C-alpha cells in the first residue's frame, strides 16, 4: 500500500492553500485499489477524479472549503447518485442509486470527494462484518481477526490509512464497536443530528449516520458539515449545531469535568480492556476531572430491548425488498406469495432472515404487548436513567466492547453471543444520546482498545471537546 493518508484537516488546509485535490484523491484511489483487507468493495475512480477537478476549480475561483479535497469512503448503505449501493446484500444486486444521501451531499458540497464504498454486515446486521455477501473484512491490526461491525469496512479503511474519513451508520454500536476494535475514532451523533435521508433503513428510531476518523478533530469537522435539519427527514432535529469544531485546548478541556463511571460496567471486561479503562480514570483525574459514580439500572436490559425494537422495525423496513422494483427476480412464480417469498429467500442472507422472523414474531398479534410495547416502556426507563445520571455528571466514561477484536468465525454460529458483544453500546441508541469511541492504547496482545464517552442528548459539541481531551491523554 502506498503509504497512509494524511489527516483530513491537513489535506483541506493544503488544498485550500493551492495544493491539488486531484493528487490527494489519486493517492487515496491507489490505496483503495490495493486494499488487502476486503474493506473496500467498490472504487469510484472516474467519479472521484471528476469531483476532485471540480474542487480544484472551486478553490482556484476563490472558494475556501472546510473539507477541500478530502477523500472519503461510504458504507454500502448510503446512497450516491449513479453508483451501485447494495447494503452488502444479494437482494440489491445491480441497484443504482438515483439520488445521493443528504449527509453525503453536504460533505461533497464542503469539498470532500467520495473515492470508495466500504464493506459491511448485510443490512448492518452483525458485529463482526462476517455477514456481508462480499465476504468478511479483516482487521488491519491482525488479519486473522474481525474488524467489528457492522461498519467494519469503514473502520478498517480509516484505521489502515486508505481514507482519512469514512461514514458508517450506528443502530446499536455499528460505528463505535468497529472503531474500538480497529483503533479509529468513531462517533454516533445524537439521534436527529444527521439526516437519515438516503441511508437505507434498518431500525429507524435508532439509526444514525456518523464519521470514522483518525482524530476527534477530523471527526468533528465531518460532523459539523453533516449536522442539521433536512426537509427530507422529518426526524432530523430543527436545532442548530454550533461549536462542534470548537475543541478548545486539550490540556484544559478536562478541568472540572464530572466524569461518570458505572461500577456494573467492570464485570465481564477482559483484563486488557479493564486495564485501559483504569488507566483512563487515573489520567482523567490527573488532568483535573472528577470521577463520579453513576448508575444506569436498566442498561442491563438494553440488549433485550434492542432485539425487540430493532428487529420489529427491521421486519417492517425490509418488507419493501420484494424483487419487483429493484434487485434480482426469480423465474416462474407459482403465486404472488411464492414470488415474494423466493425473491426474499434468495436475496437475504441467514442473519437478515433470522432478524426479519424475530421482528415478525414480536410484532404479531398476541405478542405485541408482551414484547414490542414492553420494550418501548423499558426504553423509556433507560432514557430516564440517563437523565438521572446526567444530573450528577457531564459525561459517562466506559468500555465500548467487553473484548478486543476476536478471531474470525469465533461467534458466527451463536447469534446471542454475537448480540451480547454490543452490551455497552446499545443503550445510547435507545436513548438517542451521542457517544464516541476514542482509541486508548492496546491490550497485552497489541490489539486496540477504544473507550466510550457519552453525554446527554444534543450535547455533541461538549462530547467532542471532552473526547479531544481524552485523546490527548492517550498520546
Amino acid at each position, binding site marked *: 500500500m502506498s503509504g497512509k493518508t494524511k489527516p483530513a484537516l491537513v489535506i483541506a488546509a493544503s488544498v485550500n492553500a493551492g495544493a491539488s485535490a486531484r493528487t490527494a484523491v489519486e493517492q487515496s484511489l491507489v490505496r483503495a485499489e490495493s486494499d488487502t483487507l476486503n474493506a473496500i468493495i467498490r472504487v469510484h475512480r472516474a467519479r472521484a477524479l471528476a469531483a476532485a477537478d471540480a474542487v480544484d476549480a472551486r478553490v482556484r475561483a476563490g472558494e475556501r472549503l472546510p473539507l477541500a479535497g478530502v477523500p472519503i469512503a461510504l458504507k454500502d448503505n448510503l446512497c450516491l447518485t449513479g453508483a451501485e449501493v447494495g447494503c452488502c446484500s444479494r437482494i440489491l444486486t*445491480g*441497484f*443504482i442509486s*438515483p*439520488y445521493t444521501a443528504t449527509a453525503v451531499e453536504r460533505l461533497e458540497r464542503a469539498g470532500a470527494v467520495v473515492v470508495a464504498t466500504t464493506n459491511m454486515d448485510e443490512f448492518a446486521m452483525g458485529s463482526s462484518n462476517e455477514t456481508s455477501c462480499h465476504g468478511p473484512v479483516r482487521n488491519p491490526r491482525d488479519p486473522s481477526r474481525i474488524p467489528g461491525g457492522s461498519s467494519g469496512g469503514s473502520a478498517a479503511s480509516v484505521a489502515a490509512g486508505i481514507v482519512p474519513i469514512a461514514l458508517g451508520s450506528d443502530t446499536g454500536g455499528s460505528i463505535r464497536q468497529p472503531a474500538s476494535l480497529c483503533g479509529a475514532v468513531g462517533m454516533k451523533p*445524537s*439521534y*436527529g443530528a444527521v439526516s437519515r435521508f438516503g441511508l437505507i433503513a434498518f431500525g429507524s*428510531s435508532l439509526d444514525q449516520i456518523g464519521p470514522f476518523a483518525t482524530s476527534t478533530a477530523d471527526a468533528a469537522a465531518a460532523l459539523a458539515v453533516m449536522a442539521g435539519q433536512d*426537509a427530507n427527514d*422529518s*426526524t432530523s432535529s430543527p436545532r442548530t449545531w454550533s461549536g462542534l469544531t470548537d475543541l478548545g485546548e486539550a490540556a484544559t478541556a478536562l478541568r472540572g469535568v464530572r466524569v461518570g463511571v458505572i461500577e456494573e460496567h467492570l464485570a465481564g471486561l477482559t483484563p486488557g480492556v479493564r486495564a485501559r479503562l483504569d488507566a483512563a480514570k487515573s489520567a482523567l483525574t490527573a488532568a483535573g476531572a472528577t470521577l463520579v459514580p453513576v448508575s444506569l439500572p436498566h442498561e442491563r*436490559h438494553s440488549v*433485550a*430491548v434492542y*432485539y*425487540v425494537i430493532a428487529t420489529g422495525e427491521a421486519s417492517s423496513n425490509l*418488507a419493501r425488498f420484494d424483487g*419487483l*422494483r*429493484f*434487485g434480482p*427476480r426469480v423465474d*416462474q*412464480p407459482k*403465486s404472488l406469495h*411464492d*414470488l415474494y*417469498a423466493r425473491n*426474499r*429467500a*434468495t436475496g*437475504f*442472507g*441467514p442473519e437478515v*432472515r*433470522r432478524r*426479519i*422472523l*424475530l421482528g*415478525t*414474531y*414480536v410484532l*404479531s398479534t398476541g405478542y405485541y404487548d*408482551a*414484547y414490542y410495547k*414492553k*420494550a*418501548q*416502556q*423499558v*426504553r*423509556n*426507563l433507560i*432514557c430516564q436513567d440517563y437523565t438521572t445520571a446526567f444530573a450528577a455528571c457531564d459525561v459517562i466514561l466506559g468500555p465500548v466492547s467487553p473484548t478486543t477484536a476476536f478471531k474470525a468465525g469465533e461467534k458466527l454460529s451463536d*447469534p*446471542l453471543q454475537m*448480540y451480547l458483544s454490543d452490551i455497552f453500546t446499545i443503550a445510547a441508541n435507545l436513548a*438517542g444520546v451521542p457517544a464516541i469511541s476514542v482509541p486508548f492504547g492496546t491490550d497485552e496482545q497489541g490489539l486496540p482498545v477504544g473507550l466510550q464517552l457519552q453525554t446527554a*442528548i444534543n450535547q455533541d459539541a461538549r462530547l467532542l471537546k471532552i473526547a479531544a481531551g481524552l485523546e490527548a491523554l492517550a498520546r
Partner: protein
Amino acid sequence: MAITVKDVNHLAKLADLALGQGTASGDSTASGESEAEAMAKHLDTIVGYVQQLSEVDTTGVEPVANVAGLVNVTRADVPGRILDRTQVLANAARHSDSAILVEKVVDR
C-alpha cells in the same frame, strides 16, 4: 414457551420469506437440520433471553417511540422533488418504456 418449527413456518409466511432455499453460510444448517429447525432453535434462545423484560415493573410507564421529543412533524402539501421515470424503471428486473413488468400471478 418454546418456538416450534410450525411457528417458524407461520412467521415465514407472514414475512413473505421462503425457508430452506437461501444459502446457509454462517448457520448451523450445515449440520443437516433444515433451516426452519435451526431458526426455531435460534429464535427460541433469543426470545428466551428477551423474556427478562417481564421482570421489569413498567406500571404507568409510557412507551417511547421517538427519543428526540418530536411530535407530528408536518409540512405544506406542495409538489416536491421526485425521481425521473427512467431512473426508477432502470432498477427493475423487467420493464417496458412506461411500466415495471411483473410475472403473471393470477389466472384470469
